């Protein structure tokens, strides 16, 4: 980012741009905390920051419904569940990694290559110019309610994915019950076989 900071770029900054960078910083910091946090509780709170930052970015691109859903479902629901799971799991601090090979060097190389690639692509690609009208950019996204249009779209253009998602979720729900029930039975019968981490 420092490389780009010539005078012309700075002069074009608006308050909304500054706000965007602040929010993006929150999201990235949170994501880093999730990945590198030594304590799993810290990681969970890092996830809170990351999800919140992403919700704020949704507001920036005028996706109000998605932002609210992100708050309600991910922060209000999923994250709280994760925290409950962490708090209720006994001896979670005693968990030991059975596989100690971290592969830091190859992992780091792949990370740096991918980082360079994605940054390069995001800077050099003329995004959204093919579609004719172009994709909305951060600056010209008007703040108008989207819930009505999304609701319409879900029941017309996107009806099939909307309905199929329910089948997929049904399978996921039942699958979760099956897996959990199996673990319970293993515990009651003495828990030996099949319970490897």
């Amino acid at each position: 980012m420092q490389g780009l900071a010539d005078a012309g770029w700075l002069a074009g900054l608006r308050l909304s741009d500054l706000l965007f960078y602040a929010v993006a910083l929150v999201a990235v910091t949170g994501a880093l905390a999730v990945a590198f946090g030594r304590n799993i509780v810290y990681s969970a709170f890092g996830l809170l920051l990351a999800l919140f930052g992403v919700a704020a970015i949704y507001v920036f691109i005028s996706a109000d419904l998605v932002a609210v859903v992100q708050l309600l479902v991910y922060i209000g629901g999923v994250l709280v569940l994760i925290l409950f799971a962490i708090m209720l799991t006994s001896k979670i601090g005693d968990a030991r990694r059975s596989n100690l090979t971290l592969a830091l060097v190859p992992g780091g190389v792949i990370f740096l290559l991918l980082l360079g690639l994605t940054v390069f692509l995001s800077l050099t690609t003329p995004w959204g110019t093919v579609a004719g009208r172009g994709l909305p950019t951060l600056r010209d996204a008007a703040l108008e309610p989207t819930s009505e249009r999304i609701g319409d779209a879900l029941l017309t253009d996107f009806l099939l994915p909307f309905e199929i998602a329910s089948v997929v979720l049904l399978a996921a729900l039942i699958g979760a019950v099956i897996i959990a029930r199996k673990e319970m039975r293993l515990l009651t019968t003495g828990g030996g076989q099949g319970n490897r981490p």
Partner: protein
Amino acid sequence: MDTLTASQSLIWFQPELALVATIVAVFLVDLVVAGRAWREIPAAVVSALGLALVAVLSWQQWSAGTQSIFQGMAAVDPFAVFFKLLIAAATLSALIFLFRSNEMIGDASGEAYALVLVMALCGMLLASANNLLMVYLALEGVSIASYVLAGYSRRNPRASEAALKYVIYGGVASGVMLFGLSYLYGVTGTLDLTLMRERLSSLASASTGPATAFNGVLLVAAAFVIVGIGYKVAAVPFHMWCPDVYEGAPTPIAALFSVVPKAAGLAVLIRFFYVGLSYGTSGGEFIAIQSLPWVALFGIVAAATMTVGNFAACWQTNLKRLLAYSSIAHVGYALMGFVVLGESGLSALLYYLAIYAVMNLGAFFCVVAVRNATGSEDLDGVRGLGTRDPLTAAAFTVFLLSLVGLPPFAGFVGKYFLFAAVLERAGAWYDALVVVAAVNTAVSLFFYAKILKAMYLTKAVDPLPIRVPGGQLLAVLVFAAITLVLGFWAPGISRVKGAADGALVFVGYGYRDAQVASLADCPGRDRNP
């Protein structure tokens, strides 16, 4: 071609609707009879009847022409129907071996049938998805059902490990793919595959400067999609989960894993790259959009996949792991047809897939039969099978020789079409690919012959004859008969080949009618009416 609205689309969606109804019915029936000793029977019967109905309804769509349904979300075309029939038939035959399998949790079997049906449903949707959102959703559906099924077996201590590995690999792969899809959306502003190709064709004429500015992002997006789908079909850099999952999963489920997700994954791969990222010419050949070298990526993947699969299989003693590596290798062979960029290659791929489904399911079913009878799924378990159960051993021999690709069996014909399609294209790289495939075929003989040697040339630990239940034996023998007959009976071969040729009709892709003479004309080509 007009796209139909939701209510008009329903009549074109009958097979999938029937399958959804069957899934719900299995869940409900299972609740009603919960706790009874015979509770598995109604679930199995409802599943089988439902799948048979689905197959019939799909069959009727074969000659119904092409139609884009649900605002372009899904396609009903011979290509999709081919895969729907393949998936329905494979699932139906696997039910025979799932029934009363002692590898499943006894009192949760109704849900197992429903999950198998969910996997089939999402596999069918994957084959007909014409929109990136549907592609992703269907892929996740197949994955979620597979994760649960992989960890289903209670007695196998490796089941939970397999399921966990599968989930973690799958999460990473689908995340990478989703990122690639977001690139495509960012460039084209659409999720519809047909529309995407149309917009990508006009790259040069748009007011965007040189069209080459898009090459980087398109290539990376293509590579990321290969990660996501390559994981599903277990192509080589993304194959690590495959042996562990097959070993941990109940054997009938592993048999399904080796066919349904792979067929669906290859289907979506073909539709994505051939409909979304290439033009067809009237000569039955294809040209990649922007001359992107994704074919080269696939050439490398295909060669690596068959080599790793075959060489790793040589050291396996567990039959399920061995067949897992063998199935990896066969995806490598099938991908050779993908590299050709022509109708002949695609048709050879579809033919091979149909043959592979029969012979691979057959081989897995033999392992199920042996495992149920002896409790062992190792190479030692089949020792002396030639005397203990001559019929199963004979069928197993047919499947194995066909998997090698030896002449009087169906696998040979399938490989012949693939090799011929690749050799049709001039170029040292194509020749090299065929050489790699030929060397691999020779290597594969070694490990398939290891099983044959164990069955016929070594003495059994326990010489008592074993009995395979009548239904299972019949299914295995029918599969063996198909494998044998499609090896030399010309009318049968040409019929299947005709189906594979006829399946190469895609919605919104009228390359057959196009009178495109040269590459220069391609970018300006309009969407087919």
